[in-house]
């Protein structure tokens, strides 16, 4: 069955590498590739031991590191063959990528901080506070017909007159099972809609699926968005880019 994990706190292979370089207190321009590769692979193994899936990007980086390590171990004959041309450090491209990524990661952190600061300033809560400056409504009542208005009113009164309905709750399927169903639907998709998750449209299914979604939000597995009141709910796996199917 598809299983979704998030790789600890690392945003990707560059993030993991930068962390290893920082922990080893080595110069980024002179990375001890053998040591770092070893630690990088160790980390991936530790994930495997915990039965966690490893995202493809992390494996690609592992291959790159191993290739770099083997090139650095080769005797420098090739460099001599290249004559005057200065032998390029094979680590150079990786370091440039790392520095580039590091800069944007830091800007991201700067933005996070600025957001927290900015969110303490509240703007005006209502936009109606203007005299003689009401919005222009191009559709004040839309296509609403008089007859509809009567039907809506009748319907409301009929609902009001009804005895409160008695719902019997059958055991049905458990919350855990509902959550598993939602996870299954999300595998390999950028997002699914709530309406698509609810197939039979029974109250039990709707409520059960909704509870499962709330629980998954609480667990940080998914994010939800609803653009309009009573609109469909869109469900996305959280931090999709770090997920893979086991």
């Amino acid at each position, binding site marked *: 069955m598809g299983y979704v994990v998030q790789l600890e706190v690392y945003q990707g292979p560059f993030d993991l590498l930068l962390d290893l370089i920082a922990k080893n207190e080595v110069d980024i321009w002179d990375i001890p590739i053998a040591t770092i590769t070893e630690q990088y692979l160790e980390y991936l193994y530790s994930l495997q031991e915990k039965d966690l899936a490893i995202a493809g990007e992390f494996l690609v980086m592992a291959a790159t590191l191993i290739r770099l390590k083997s090139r650095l171990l080769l005797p420098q004959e090739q460099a001599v063959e290249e004559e005057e041309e200065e032998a390029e450090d094979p680590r150079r491209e990786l370091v440039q990528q790392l520095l580039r990524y590091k800069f944007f990661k830091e800007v991201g952190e700067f933005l996070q901080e600025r957001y927290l600061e900015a969110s303490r300033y509240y703007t005006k809560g209502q936009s109606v506070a*203007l005299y003689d400056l009401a919005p222009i409504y191009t559709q*004040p009542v839309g296509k*609403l017909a008089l007859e509809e208005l009567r039907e809506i009113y009748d319907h409301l009164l009929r609902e009001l007159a009804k005895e409160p309905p008695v719902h019997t709750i059958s055991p049905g399927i458990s919350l855990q099972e509902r959550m598993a169903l939602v996870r299954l639907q999300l595998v390999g998709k950028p997002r699914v809609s709530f309406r698509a998750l609810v197939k039979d449209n029974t109250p039990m299914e709707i409520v059960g699926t909704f509870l499962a979604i709330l629980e998954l939000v609480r667990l940080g597995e998914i994010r939800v968005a609803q653009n309009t009141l009573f609109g469909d709910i869109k469900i996305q796996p959280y931090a999709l880019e770090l997920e893979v199917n086991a």
Partner: protein
Amino acid sequence: MKLAEARVVVEGLIFAADRPLSAQEIAEIIGLDPPAVEALVEDIRSRYADGALTIRRVGGGFQLVTKPELSPWIEKLGRPVIHAPLSPAATEALAIIAYEQPVTKAEIEQIRGVRSDSALNSLLERGLICEVGRKEGPGRPILYGTTAKFLEHFGLASADELPLRSISE
């Protein structure tokens, strides 16, 4: 909390609230009684004497607005254009007001079974309903009714011309 501090908090709350705040609501947040809140609001209003803003009482609450004499300037900012049709919630509230008018928010909410503040705001902004008076009794709640604009949109001469309700009920 000192009064000067409370005054600043009240000002901030009225500015930032997404609806007109009643003295009662403010009182609950800051832990004073409603008359004390009313006094603070008066204090804020008097401090606004030589500024652009004032506090008006609307729908049983306080709202921060620009002074009316500034409207010719503010109109130059342009009126926002909204294309959205009426929401289902607002449509329900409109149906109730049309048939039950004059009617209070509480009565509308009782029929709908849900809070209806934003539905009423939307109808007020669209000019389809207006405040038509106050109901006698505790709190003297606002009574709402439909406007001439409402009748015009549906081609009615008066609210009496609304279609009769079905007999089934």
